[in-house]
């Protein structure tokens, strides 16, 4: 490592006073080794090719919540686009660069993100929130990878039973006169929430608006607020005394 730094200095890339190199983990973990071993064995066994895997990795790496945030911001600014988003989420996604069918390496969607997006529009009297009670279906092509808590049985089971309480645990208090509608994702249909535009954002650009439309706002466990651009950090608690359910 010291040798590399010396070489960088010699070539004028290591000036004093510049940003220090970002810290990195300098040990190989058993989990890192396991991931590679599983992948290599799968390739050896002919389950997929190294080239297939590279293409999928590139695709997964490209996913994130920004396209969905832009879709929401556009819908806030353009009533016609808003109508399109609610009527045909897949078509509206094209306007923010997401092709549900052709973007994935398969060229016909992905096995875990079926090509049907529904955009659920919140109103002053209706709040939507998204879950997948069966596993962790999520609109990944437009919203990226799901957060850990979204995958947990605690969120999945409890949200459909006690949505108001679960939302309050995220810090979101919904008035009693507002209906909460829980959308249960499935293999055929994915959902995202189109939250209401908050007060105090008059005259904002699409980029400014997109910054406050966080992932959590589009799952429905938060609402956009001027100045808030990050998601709530929720610790995932394990059950200490789990109740065993019998069929």
């Amino acid at each position, binding site marked *: 490592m010291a040798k590399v730094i010396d070489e960088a200095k010699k070539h004028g890339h290591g000036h004093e006073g510049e940003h220090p190199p970002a*810290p990195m*983990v300098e040990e190989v973990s058993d989990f*890192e080794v*396991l991931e590679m071993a599983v992948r290599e064995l799968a390739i050896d066994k002919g389950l*997929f090719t190294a080239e297939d895997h590279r293409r*999928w990795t590139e695709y*997964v790496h490209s996913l994130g919540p920004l396209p969905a945030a832009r879709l929401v911001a556009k819908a806030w600014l353009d009533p016609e686009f808003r109508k399109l988003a609610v009527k045909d989420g897949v078509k509206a996604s094209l306007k923010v660069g997401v092709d549900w069918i052709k973007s994935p390496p398969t060229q016909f969607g992905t096995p875990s993100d079926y090509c049907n997006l529904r955009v659920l529009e919140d109103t002053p009297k209706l709040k939507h929130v998204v879950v997948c009670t069966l596993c962790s279906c999520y609109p990944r092509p437009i919203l990226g990878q799901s957060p850990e808590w979204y995958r947990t049985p605690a969120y999945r089971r409890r949200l459909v039973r006690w949505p108001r309480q679960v939302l309050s645990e995220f810090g979101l208090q919904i008035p009693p006169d507002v209906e909460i509608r829980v959308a249960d994702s499935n293999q055929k249909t994915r959902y995202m929430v189109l939250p209401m535009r908050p007060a105090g954002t008059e005259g904002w650009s699409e980029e400014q608006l997109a910054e406050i439309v966080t992932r959590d706002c589009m799952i429905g466990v938060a609402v956009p607020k001027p100045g808030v651009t990050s998601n709530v950090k929720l610790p995932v608690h394990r059950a200490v005394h789990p109740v065993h359910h019998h069929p």
Partner: protein
Amino acid sequence: MATLEKADLAPIGVLEGIRRRGRPWEDLAAQYGVKNPDPPWKVTLDATCDILAAESCASAEGEAEAAGSVLPVLERRAEEDELSSTLYAGVPFPERQLLALAHSMIRRGLFDEEELARRMKEVQERLTSA
């Protein structure tokens, strides 16, 4: 839904070793002052899960051929849920997702425990040889 039988949820030696001694990303990141919330291998793990669920795979000649999913999403996730609340309950995410995937693949006979142990040794030597 076809999920693993009770017996299939029994511990697997090579994975038990990793569960016991493996250092999860949250520990490593804290020790080395790294801010990235996810380990670098998470994206390749997700790609592996996706591609195993695909309903057709490229043949050696590069032609798409019809084939069933090697490991359908619903089965993998159901097994991950089960294993995450039992064998790998003490393991953080996404490490437990990885252990559950390896567990499901071994129990399906996609590779065996000895092959995995051997390959891990090779990978370990390769990564630490420089």
